[in-house]
């Protein structure tokens, strides 16, 4: 994949300049640390849809600040890294745009105060993720992975939206700040369980929890900067973020704790085992990401308050682990990208001996892997101690929790050794190309993140006070009184830690035997999520094909029949069911002119029916249209009449073009006698039901209030005397905008259909076809 880049291509200036954006945002968010760690909540809001209680509101509290700093801080290095990594790829401008769009969406997600706004940003991250996974869109596997990620997370997102709406209704507000200010009421609400399940669907799909985890490893089809940024450090944490955000509202119930603990524990153990069976560096890292997400979800299942008034270690551990993981995982992914880029492969069996060839990448990988394995004095050690302490304090079955997290952590140590030792030691003979150190833009990010992981562990109280405890406070709903230290003395978590590292190293040492056994065990798993996804997609495609064959067989007459039968039946059924059939009491009075126009329309309709040439039928239909336009004119609607006449004219012109030029319709069947009866029946159904609707509508006195309003406000409010036009372009301009959008789309769609024709010659100027030449590069 990386080989696609041409070495001699220039790095575009904008790709470098855009790095300043996240850097500036990072500095800006950093200035908020003192206020936020002091317990302040910064807010900013503009009205969007005040009628629905939806405002563009943003809050910066400990939790959102931690995420915002991770997004902008890591984003700075990712954009810098991508400017070099993507050199020579086609459409780098588009890539950069997607990446920045993702970053801003993700920031919006974590800073949103309003549930609906949060959902909008949530889906924006889904869409940008889709575009980025499918960036190399000539590759069928990338397209499939992009669609899979989109379907899985968007399906969860829709469930989550339903959950949000129910939550908003139950709480009486969509503002998170207001919901969090009064968190007590929801747990006992009758809809609590439904809300919880729907929101968990969103969080679990986004954060790749078992059994929805499969899309995340497939998302590794994206270029490495994307994998490092979206699919390890930020976007996949959105689900964890949401759960953390809503913990004070929805948490602390038995069902919350049980669900999160079970799903999280299964995910974390399962994913860490799979991670060891992979040989592709990015796949190993992807599964350890799933493992980390599982651990975060599992620990968010901890109660918000431990017994005896102690703060909940589990929640502090979850927040800390988010921070720890983002640092080392982004660094390791970037190093994996460097290896791929410089050595030409990321298959572990081929890699080796890069220690001397790529010393800085090795340095960064070593720092990150130490943090991942939880070796003191790295921040990863602090995180792991907290996890063990939290698991030991589990309210129910602490031994299960401890066993799960220790098992996962042991395999994590092995995985850390796999990615940091195997590529760098041993022989470099199997490398496909002569490797050398990556440019500075590509090693600076991992080195800085690795050093931060080291400093964060050496100054644990500072990290905790500035970032972690304020974030934990937002999750727990109170300021925790807890001191994060590197050295807690010899206690059970420390012993577990030693056990973890030693066992993990032992597995690594005996990996030839042990991992093969694990691989064959994993292969015997009966059903994977990936296969289940395929089955569901095939079923949906079959269903779509079946209904398309049935309803849209490709014959024009069939389409019209389906449309009119549906229209006629739905109108008729509604009329009868609502008892709305009103027959006029007296024979209507009308002037001679009106009667003449009506007679003209009826006569022209009759001519249309019996016409035996197409031209005559079209002309007669035109007369019907003109008659209708006359009626509009008689009843004082010149704009509508004019539009109607013009449309009729246009139809005649288009039909003239088609009729005069098209060759004979060879083999066209004339309708049979039975077909004519059927058509007549359908036409009668539609005609009668439409007439009845019009009679029912006109039987009611017209709503004068609306007309009066427009007549009164048209001149002072819209500065126009033509009310129809003022309505079109001002009062109801949004409707018009929708209509012209439909017109434009219909035009383009019709054009595509017209151009759909087997061609013998290939013309270079053929419009509307994607340029396939880019595929070769």
């Amino acid at each position, binding site marked *: 994949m990386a080989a696609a880049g041409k070495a001699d291509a220039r790095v575009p200036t904008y790709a470098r300049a855009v790095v300043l954006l996240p850097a500036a945002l990072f500095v800006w968010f950093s200035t908020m640390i003192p206020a936020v760690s002091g317990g302040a909540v910064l807010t900013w809001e*503009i*009205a969007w849809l005040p009628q629905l209680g939806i405002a563009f509101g943003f809050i910066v509290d400990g939790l959102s600040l931690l995420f915002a700093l991770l997004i902008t801080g890591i984003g700075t290095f990712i954009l810098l890294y991508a400017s070099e990594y993507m050199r020579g790829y086609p459409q780098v401008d588009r890539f950069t745009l997607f990446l920045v769009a993702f970053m801003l969406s993700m920031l919006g997600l974590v800073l949103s105060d309003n549930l609906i706004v949060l959902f909008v940003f949530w889906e924006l991250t889904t869409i940008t993720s889709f575009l980025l996974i499918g960036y190399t869109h000539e590759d069928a596997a990338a397209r499939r992975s992009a669609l899979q990620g989109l379907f899985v997370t968007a399906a969860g997102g829709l469930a989550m939206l339903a959950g949000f709406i129910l939550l908003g209704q139950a709480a009486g507000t969509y503002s998170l700040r207001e919901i969090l200010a009064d968190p007590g009421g929801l747990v006992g609400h009758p809809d609590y369980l439904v809300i919880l399940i729907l929101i968990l669907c969103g969080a679990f799909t986004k954060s790749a929890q078992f059994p929805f985890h499969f899309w995340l490893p497939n998302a590794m089809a994206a270029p490495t900067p994307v994998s490092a940024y979206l699919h390890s450090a930020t976007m996949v944490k959105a689900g964890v973020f949401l759960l953390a955000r809503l913990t004070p509202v929805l948490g602390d119930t038995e069902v919350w704790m049980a669900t999160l603990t079970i799903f999280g524990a299964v995910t974390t153990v399962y994913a860490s085992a799979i991670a060891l069976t992979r040989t592709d560096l990015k796949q190993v890292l992807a599964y350890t990401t799933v493992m980390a997400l599982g651990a975060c979800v599992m620990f968010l299942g901890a109660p918000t308050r431990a017994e005896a008034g102690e703060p909940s270690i589990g929640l502090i551990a979850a927040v800390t682990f988010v921070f720890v993981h983002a640092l080392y995982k982004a660094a390791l992914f970037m190093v994996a990208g460097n290896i791929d880029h410089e050595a030409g492969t990321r298959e572990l069996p081929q890699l080796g001996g890069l220690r001397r060839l790529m010393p800085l990448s090795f340095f960064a990988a070593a720092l990150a892997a130490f943090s991942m394995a939880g070796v003191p004095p790295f921040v990863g050690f602090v995180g792991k101690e907290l996890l063990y302490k939290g698991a030991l304090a589990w309210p129910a079955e602490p031994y299960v929790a401890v066993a799960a997290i220790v098992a996962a952590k042991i395999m994590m140590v092995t995985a850390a050794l796999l990615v940091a030792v195997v590529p760098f030691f041993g022989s470099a003979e199997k490398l496909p190309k002569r490797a050398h150190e990556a440019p500075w833009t590509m090693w600076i990010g991992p080195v800085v993140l690795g050093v931060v992981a080291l400093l964060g562990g050496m100054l644990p109280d500072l990290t905790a006070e500035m970032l972690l405890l304020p974030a934990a406070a937002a999750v727990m709903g109170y300021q925790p009184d807890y001191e994060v230290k590197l050295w807690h003395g010899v206690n059970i978590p420390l012993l577990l830690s030693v056990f973890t590292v030693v066992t993990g190293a032992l597995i690594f040492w005996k990996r030839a035997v042990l991992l093969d056994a694990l691989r064959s065990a994993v292969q015997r798993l009966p059903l994977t999520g990936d296969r289940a996804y395929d089955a569901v997609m095939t079923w949906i495609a079959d269903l779509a094909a079946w209904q398309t064959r049935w309803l849209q067989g490709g014959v024009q007459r069939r389409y019209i029949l389906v449309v009119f039968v549906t229209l006629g039946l739905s109108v008729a059924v509604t009329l009868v069911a609502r008892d709305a059939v009103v027959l006029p009491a007296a024979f209507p009075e009308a002037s001679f002119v009106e009667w003449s126009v009506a007679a003209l329309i009826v006569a022209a309709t009759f001519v249309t029916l019996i016409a035996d040439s197409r031209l005559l039928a079209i002309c007669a239909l035109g007369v019907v249209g003109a008659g209708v336009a006359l009626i509009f004119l008689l009843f004082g609607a*010149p*704009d509508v009449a*004019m*539009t109607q006449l*013009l*449309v009729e*004219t*246009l139809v005649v*012109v*288009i039909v*003239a*073009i*088609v009729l*005069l*030029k*098209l*060759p004979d319709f*060879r*083999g066209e069947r004339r309708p049979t006698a039975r077909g004519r009866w059927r058509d007549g029946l359908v036409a009668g159904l539609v005609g009668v039901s439409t007439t009845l609707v019009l009679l029912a509508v006109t039987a009611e006195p017209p709503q004068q209030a609306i007309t009066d309003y427009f007549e009164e406000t048209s001149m002072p409010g*819209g*500065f*126009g*005397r*033509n009310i*129809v*036009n*003022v309505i*079109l*372009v*001002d009062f109801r*301009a*949004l409707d*018009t*905008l929708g209509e*012209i*959008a439909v*017109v*434009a789309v*219909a*035009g*383009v769609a*019709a*054009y595509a259909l*017209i*151009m*759909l*024709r*087997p061609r*013998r*010659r290939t013309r270079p100027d053929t*419009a509307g076809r994607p340029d396939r030449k880019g595929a070769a590069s």
Partner: protein
Amino acid sequence: MNSLILREATRLLVAMMLVFSVFMLLRGHNEPGGGFIGGLIAAIAFSLYALATDAAAVRRALRADPRKIAAVGLGIAIASGFLGLFFEQAPFLTGQWTEVAGLKVGTPLPFDIGVYLVVVGAVLTVVLGIKEQQADIEEDPIEPEEKL
């Protein structure tokens, strides 16, 4: 269609119809007319021109791909709606008015121009598409069994 009368008459008619369409567009706010009607008239004018001559002549006269015209029109209409957001934080598409030399000028005008362009662009996309496809078929007829 090869008719001398139609071709010569069209030359005159098209010019008049186009001027009339702009007239209809501009007067629409106070008298019957507006972007939709004006756009339809312009579309008819160009369709007539296509009928009398060929699609290439219409494309030359338009100077831009009709699909682009429709897209630009949609863009203008959307952009006009954002002005209100910037000036007074009013909801999207709130009309903004100002007076230039005693004449009321407001965002509904660019919006209406957008409507006009979308209608012209979309209709001509279809008309020219049909026209060109026919020329193609005449040059290179498809056998019935080849039809999809």
